[in-house]
């Protein structure tokens, strides 16, 4: 009965205010798709068929998926379709497919953090966010590639091989949520969940030209997120525009009894308003972010975005970001310390990689872990073990905690003056595969603009703001005060309503 393809319907029913220039095919946003499903213009099964087809056709070039969950997706689709047929209200995204980063536990679906160490591990439980997605009638279709254990910014370090940027296959998709960004950018899935410990949602969004939100620490339950750095990790939405991301954030931000660091007393509720102006809004611009090391085109695109906010009525206030020299060392000390402890449980005894060469208990630990972890993961485990060891704890870890507290205080003061801070996401656009992987320091420094929000627990969005001369997407970051997601989303809506950067899609007919 319902025989139209998704793209046909959308082409007939949706008109874009800004015509996409790089468009090959038009795919709907997640909310548009949900509206079509609700109106029964298309079935959940047809939607799944479309996306699984697109993945089959395109993903061999991108390598964004690590696992597909066709069977469970079809089973869930059936249940959701029945509810839709009965006009049951599930959520604003009922029936919409979603893919999940490989470090978020999905019951019955392999979850390996893209690591050999967890190869073959199938969780016996769903992460709280996954439970919420299912309750909202969303359909989990698969697991997305990433840097091993979310440690990296290029999605090249995982066991599944590198993710390719849909805008230029010779380039990285960013990381660590690179699979999530590439899949959404290539319209292989309307929405994805990523996780952000030091920029792992925002930077790949920027590299792939999509929108993402790193929520306030404590806004989204971490239960079931396989920990990299517990005090910094947050799960967040990645999509093609801010409205889709906001709708998804609303769903995953609901209460969770299982996470003691979850602090919202109820889920977010974002108003549907569509303001066009930001009169009276003050936006801080940290000028020292634009000094050494930043690509000129990146800097210019961010300044243009700031100008756009000014055009919308906001005031741009330049300031010097304090403590900038301490941000990277503080982040890497804390993140690695927590990681060294979080990753200690992987020994192959209960699940994951167990060395065939191990004969003693000591060898089980030593060999299984040596064989199972990749080089970047080992580097961070060693760094973290070192800074926590007796005699160094005070010199490194404790100092890092103090620096973190100072940084938090500095942000508190900044948000007394500004509603938002606008900044670059990364110093460059997507680089070529292998370009940074051998130079860890260079890669660590590239996190300079993003890790501050994690250390201070603040929300930040990453929004597309144009393309560089090589045709690669560029993004900028808007950071807000804790739990001011609604304000951030409102400002992002204003920006996206005034610009069309987020509507541009990569050519994916490889």
């Amino acid at each position, binding site marked *: 009965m319902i025989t139209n393809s998704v793209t046909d319907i959308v082409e007939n029913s949706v008109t874009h205010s800004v015509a996409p220039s790089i468009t090959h095919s038009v795919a709907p946003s997640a909310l548009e798709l949900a509206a079509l499903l609700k109106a029964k213009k298309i079935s959940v099964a047809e939607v799944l068929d479309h996306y699984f087809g697109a993945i089959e056709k395109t993903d061999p070039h991108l390598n964004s998926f690590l696992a597909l969950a066709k069977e469970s997706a079809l089973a869930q689709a059936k249940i959701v379709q029945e509810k839709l047929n009965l006009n049951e209200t599930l959520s604003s995204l009922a029936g919409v497919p979603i893919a999940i980063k490989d470090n*978020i*536990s999905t019951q019955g679906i392999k979850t390996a953090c893209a690591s050999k160490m967890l190869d073959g591990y199938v*969780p016996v439980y769903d992460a709280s966010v996954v439970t919420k997605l299912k309750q909202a009638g969303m359909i989990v279709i698969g697991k997305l590639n990433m840097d091993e254990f979310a440690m990296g910014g290029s999605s090249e370090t995982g066991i599944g091989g590198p993710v390719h940027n849909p805008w230029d296959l010779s380039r990285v998709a960013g990381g660590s949520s690179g699979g999530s960004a590439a899949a959404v950018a290539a319209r292989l899935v309307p929405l994805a969940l990523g996780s952000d410990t030091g920029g792992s949602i925002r930077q790949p969004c920027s590299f792939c030209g999509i929108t993402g939100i790193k929520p306030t620490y404590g806004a989204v339950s971490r239960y079931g997120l396989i920990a990299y750095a517990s005090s910094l990790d947050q799960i967040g939405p990645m999509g093609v525009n801010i409205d889709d991301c906001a709708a998804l954030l609303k769903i995953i931000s609901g209460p969770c009894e299982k996470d003691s660091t979850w602090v919202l007393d109820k889920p977010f509720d974002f108003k549907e308003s569509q303001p066009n102006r930001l009169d009276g809004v003050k936006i801080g611009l940290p000028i020292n972010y634009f000094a050494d090391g930043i690509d000129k085109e990146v800097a210019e695109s961010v300044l243009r975005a700031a100008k756009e906010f000014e055009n919308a009525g906001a005031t741009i206030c330049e300031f010097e970001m304090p403590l900038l020299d301490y941000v990277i060392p503080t982040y890497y000390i804390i993140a690695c310390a927590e990681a060294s402890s979080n990753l*200690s449980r992987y*020994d192959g005894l209960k699940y994951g990689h167990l060395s065939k060469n191990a004969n003693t208990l000591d060898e089980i630990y030593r060999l299984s872990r040596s064989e199972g972890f990749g080089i970047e993961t080992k580097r961070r485990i060693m760094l973290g073990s070192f800074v926590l060891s007796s005699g160094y704890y005070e010199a490194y870890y404790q100092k890092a905690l103090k620096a973190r507290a100072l940084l938090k205080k500095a942000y508190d003061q900044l948000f007394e003056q500004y509603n938002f801070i606008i900044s670059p996401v990364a110093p460059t656009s997507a680089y070529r595969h292998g370009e940074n992987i051998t130079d860890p320091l260079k890669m660590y420094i590239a996190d300079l603009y993003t890790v501050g929000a994690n250390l201070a627990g603040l929300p930040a969005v990453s929004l597309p703001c144009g393309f560089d001369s090589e045709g690669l997407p560029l993004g900028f970051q808007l950071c807000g005060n804790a739990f001011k997601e609604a304000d951030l989303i409102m400002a992002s809506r204003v920006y996206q309503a005034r610009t069309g950067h987020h509507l541009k899609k990569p050519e994916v007919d490889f």
Partner: protein
Amino acid sequence: MSKTAWETVIGLEVHAELLTGSKIFCSCATSFGDAPNTLVCPICSGMPGTLPKLNQSVVEYAIRLGLVLNCEITKNCKFDRKNYFYPDLPKAYQVSQLYSPICRNGYLEIETEAGQKIIRISEIHMEEDAGKLIHDKRDGTLMDFNRCGTPLLEIVTEPDFENEVEVLDFLEKMREILVYLNICDGKMQEGSLRCDINLSVKKEGAELGVRTEMKNLNSFKAVARAIGDEALRQTQILSRGGFIVQETRRWDDDNGLSYAMRSKENAQDYRYFPEPDLLPLNISEAWLSEIKKSLPELAHEKRSRYQNDHGITPKDTFALTEDKSLADLFDDVIKNGADPQESAHLICGEIKRLLNTAGLAPKELRIDAKKLAQLVNLVIKGEINRSAYKETVEAVFNFDVCPLEYIETKGLRMQNDDNLIKKAAAYVLEENPGAVSDYRSGKDKALGFLIGQTMKELKGTGNPGAVKKVLLDYFEA
């Protein structure tokens, strides 16, 4: 070597498993002796991505103990991770408290030959227990995670003990407190109460010596033996001019000796750091005073109340408080208006005897205190005699009968009616002329026989005093 004597210096680390019913960070039940890996969930088995959720009862229990041991309560205490690799620890870290334990700077008084002595408690912290490894000859080493996440309190003392007598008195008192607070069952054999010993020896007046830590002590007896043995071992080494290695030793109670497990050089670096998955606690003043108010009366407090307010003998006060269930029963009985001394005799005597006969532990005792109070009052008022009392207590113990009904049905009410007694006595005197003449000829023993016969005639319900009086009246008439 100088001739001054060697002194032993001992400090303790006591681990108490808590009776919270569920584990410290998940809702799995805690218990002992269940089939392996049946009390586990993704959280306590450390599956990737799981997070701890603190059981508030653990905090409450820690505060209860801290208050009783005169500790300062750390209102913003935090948890830390203690990292080490071992298969019984599925997360490869134990959530514990190093930097900011919940209780600090307390003390407990013990009795020594020289009088009372203060043992300082440096801290009490909350932590999770590890699982168990089962070494099997055929199957190799097996893991049982049932115990993973069982809540523990670790009580750390200052090195204030000089010998095993002091240590044992401390442990007895600690056990009694834990049991009376109803936070730990105090069973050393089952491992719910464990104790590690830090011991060093030194010459009188000298600085503290190098200490060793002794583990695997599963009974009070083992503690005493291990202290004696280790003090002797260290003294002998030092007397020969040798030196003590700082190390952890394992006590082998079967062979009565210890052996080294690991030296300080090989000691693990636990890389403690604050547990990021748990927020610092915020113990409110209101909660604290609520807990303070709810603290039960402890054994030593009960003993002095029994002695001072109720005139119970010291021996009986100890017999009553030896087990909390007996003390509770005593309190219930006297609350129901029974005479305290008579009640104490009843519980320390007849009730204990009945428990022994039935093979029951005091805490398994289910007996209606109201009924016992009623019986105590009946015997005191002389409405039943001792043998009827004993018989009815037994019937209440075994069959939960209604005492009054039982007494009436069995005709056990004491016979104070002089006429009835006189009638019975007259009959006995007539039937036993031999005994009568024996008594008259000075054989006092015969009176006992005649009283017995009269009582028998009265079916045991006679008031022995009244019977005696009636008979004496007859002879003196």
